[in-house]
Structure formats: C-alpha cells, structure tokens
C-alpha cells in the first residue's frame, strides 16, 4: 500500500485540508470583492453555513428530470477534483507519482467542466442550456491555452512526470507556461471578466438554475475545491522543491492565497465580457502567446540551449 499516496488523498492536499481551505478561498474571494466595493463582506464561516443550510433543505421530486443523474454530476466533480489534488506534486523531494501523471491531471481537471455542461443539458431548463453552451465554447478556447502552457512546461523539463515539472526553472519557457495557466484560471472558475457561463441574473444561474438543496451545496463545494486545485497547481510550479515539508506546506497555502487575492481583485475590477470577446481573447492573444512559447522551447531543447 502506498502510504504517501493515502496521505495525499486524505490529509494534504486531499480531503482534510482541501475542504476547509477551499471554503476559506471562496470566503476570501467574496471578501476581496466586498472590500474593493467598500463593503464589509461576509463573515469567515459563511461558506460553511451555506453548505450546512443547503444540506438541510428538502427537495421534492420533480417530473421530467432525472434527479439521480443531476445528483451524480457534482459528486463526480468532487471525486475527480480530490483525485487531481492528490496528484499535485507537493513535497516533490519524496513524492510518488508516475511518468505521464501530468496527462491524467489534465483529464481529471476537465471532469468538473464536462459535468457542468451535462448538468445544464440534463436540467431541461432553457437557461441551463444557454449556460452549458457558453461553458462548452469557453472551455474549448481556454483549454487550448492551458494544454499548450502545460506542454511548454513539460517540454522545458523534458518530462511528463509532475514531480519533474514542479519548482521554479531558469528556462523562460517555464514562466511563460505559468503565465498561460494563470490566464486560464478565470475562465475555468467562471470569474469576471470570463463569467459569461455562470452569468448571474443575466441567464439566472446558468447550468445550475434547476439545482436546489444538497446537490447545489455539493456544486458549491466542488467550486471551492476547483479554486484550490487551480491555484495549487500554479503554486507547485513556482515553489522551490528543496524546501522542508514544514516550510513547504504553509508556503503552498500562502502562494495559493496570494493568487486568490490577485484573481479576486481582477474579478472585482472588470466587467463581464461577452462570449465572443472572451473566446477572441483566448484564441487571438493567449493561444498565440502560448504557441510562440512552445515553439521557442522546442527549438531551445533541440539545440540544447
């Protein structure tokens, strides 16, 4: 039995750490937006109270909707997010992992987005369908950038093993890749300016319009875990791998938290872009930048620069 693997899955950065940390990040996002708007913002335990309250709601069965299928999507999202968190190369010095786990991570990271799209179509609501279509189009655009960024980082490290990718590098390709990943996070988390898939009020609640009670609470938990996974991935790519575990764990949290502050400030300071403009941003600017980075990294690798 892989003991280190179990610790990653259940302790750090898995379940025991991830759920409170994810709720803390969601709170921090709301708090930063509130402070920028000169409000006081929600109390620290707000995401926890929201979750408990939603678990206590009674949701009667409805005709014409497959309730079990609707309940399955958030559970599937949470499962894949926890698995993806366990793959993150924290403590790279004594990390396990396997060759090619980077590809598995990309696959697991995509599951919540796919579930969100399916949830919109399954709910049978017109607003859910609009939200699902928007999410699908935007995730196609932002995924190209994310994949190319990850491949750039992998090319500079000459490996698809996450442990080899972890930590800062002297190669500029590594940093362009990290920048590309950071550019994708707002679209993945449906934050401003790329919040068109969720589009609160405009298309009601997008894919989640027909959700209620415990299933909605699980979606909110999945969103919190998504925050932790995406910021944590960038944190593992920039933190030095030689740190002792008792410095690494707090540093991992602090770097992720700084990213949360940055992304929330961007979200508070921008307005929602239309779907067309969001997709244009990713295809026209971010994808071109990422392609240039991967070509230059490949050329440098070819000539052993």
């Amino acid at each position, binding site marked *: 039995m892989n003991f280190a693997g179990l610790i990653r899955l259940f302790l750090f950065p898995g379940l025991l750490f991830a759920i409170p940390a994810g709720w803390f990040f969601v709170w921090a996002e709301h708090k930063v937006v509130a402070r920028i708007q000169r409000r*006081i913002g929600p109390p620290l335990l707000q995401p926890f109270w929201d979750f408990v309250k939603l678990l206590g709601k009674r949701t009667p069965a409805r005709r014409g909707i497959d309730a079990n299928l609707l309940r399955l999507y958030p559970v599937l999202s949470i499962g894949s997010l926890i698995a993806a968190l366990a793959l993150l190369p924290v403590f790279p010095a004594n990390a396990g992992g396997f060759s090619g786990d980077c590809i598995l991570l990309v696959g697991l990271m995509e599951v919540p987005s796919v579930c969100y799209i399916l949830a919109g179509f399954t709910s049978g609501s017109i607003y859910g369908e609009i939200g699902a279509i928007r999410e699908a189009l935007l995730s196609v655009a932002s995924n190209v950038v994310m994949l190319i960024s990850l491949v750039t980082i992998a090319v500079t490290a000459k490996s698809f093993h996450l442990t080899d990718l972890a930590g800062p590098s002297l190669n500029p390709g590594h940093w362009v890749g990290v920048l590309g990943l950071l550019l994708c996070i707002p679209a993945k988390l449906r934050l401003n300016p790329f919040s068109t898939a969720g589009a609160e009020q405009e298309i009601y609640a997008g894919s989640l319009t027909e959700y209620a009670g415990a299933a909605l609470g699980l979606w909110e938990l999945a969103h919190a875990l998504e925050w932790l996974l995406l910021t944590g991935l960038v944190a593992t790519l920039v933190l030095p791998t030689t740190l002792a575990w008792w410095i690494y764990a707090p540093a991992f949290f602090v770097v992720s938290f700084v990213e949360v502050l940055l992304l929330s400030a961007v979200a508070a300071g921008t307005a929602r872009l239309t779907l067309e403009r969001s997709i244009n941003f990713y295809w026209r600017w971010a994808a071109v930048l990422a392609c240039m980075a991967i070509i230059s990294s490949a050329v440098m690798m070819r000539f052993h620069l």
Partner: protein
Amino acid sequence: MSLLQDLLHKARVKSPRIFHINSGSCNGCDIELITCLSPRYDVEQLGIHLEASPRHADILCITGPVTRNTLEAVMNAYAQVCEPKAVVAIGSCGATCNVFAGSPSVVGPLNKYIPVDVYVPGCPPHPDAIIDGIFQAAQILADRGVREEAKGQPQK
C-alpha cells in the same frame, strides 16, 4: 434540540438567501430592496445573498399589490422555493394593496394566495426596515424547519 438540529438552526439564521419578485410594484420598493445590497447597507455581512433562481432561495421577497398578470408568476416562484421557506411582503401594497386597492387589474393583497410571514410596511419602507424584516423571516424559517423536522421524525 439535538446538536445537529442546533447546527442546522444556526445555519438557517446565518445564511438566508433571498429571491425578489415584483408583483406589479411601482418600483419604489424594488429600489429600496436593491439599496440593501449597496455599500451603505451591505447585507452580505449578515449572510444575506440575492439569488438569481428561486430554487436556490430560502426567503421570497415580494413587492407590489399582485396584479392579474403577475399572479401566476408569484404562485410559480413560491412553489419553486424548497422547504423550509418564508415570505416577506415588502411595502404597504403587499399588505393592503395601498393606493392600488379597487383597481380592476389588481387581485391582491398577497395573503389571499400565499402565507406571508413578515410584513414590512412603508411606501416605500426604509432599507433598515427591509433588512430587519428579512432577518426576522430567517429566524421564523429556522424555527419552522426545526418544528417540521421534529414532526416528521416519527414517520421515518
């Protein structure tokens, strides 16, 4: 009250999510309700959050005297909010139809159709009064939830 019920009661008081319906209001009360979300009153610090879908909400905030055209929408939205739920009638119209009483297109007041828990009188009411009304509704809702669960337990 058991520990779990206590926790649930506290969560319901601390996380009231509201859904707003205009049932033919003159827009005065709507402006005052939206003001509650602004930096000056900032209801988010009480955990109050304006939801986009009635399925996500706990408390229904209804403004206006209920016109013939909006009655169906009000009934529909009320049915969509999951139990335990509470209703707040904002403004004098919800209670008495106010200046619209006697109009052929007005079929109110609201309590002819759905049970109202809290009335916030005023034309329009002050945002502080609206926040107080929502907060009282959250407490009514939490108490109701505990009562209903206590009643429902022997059947399970």
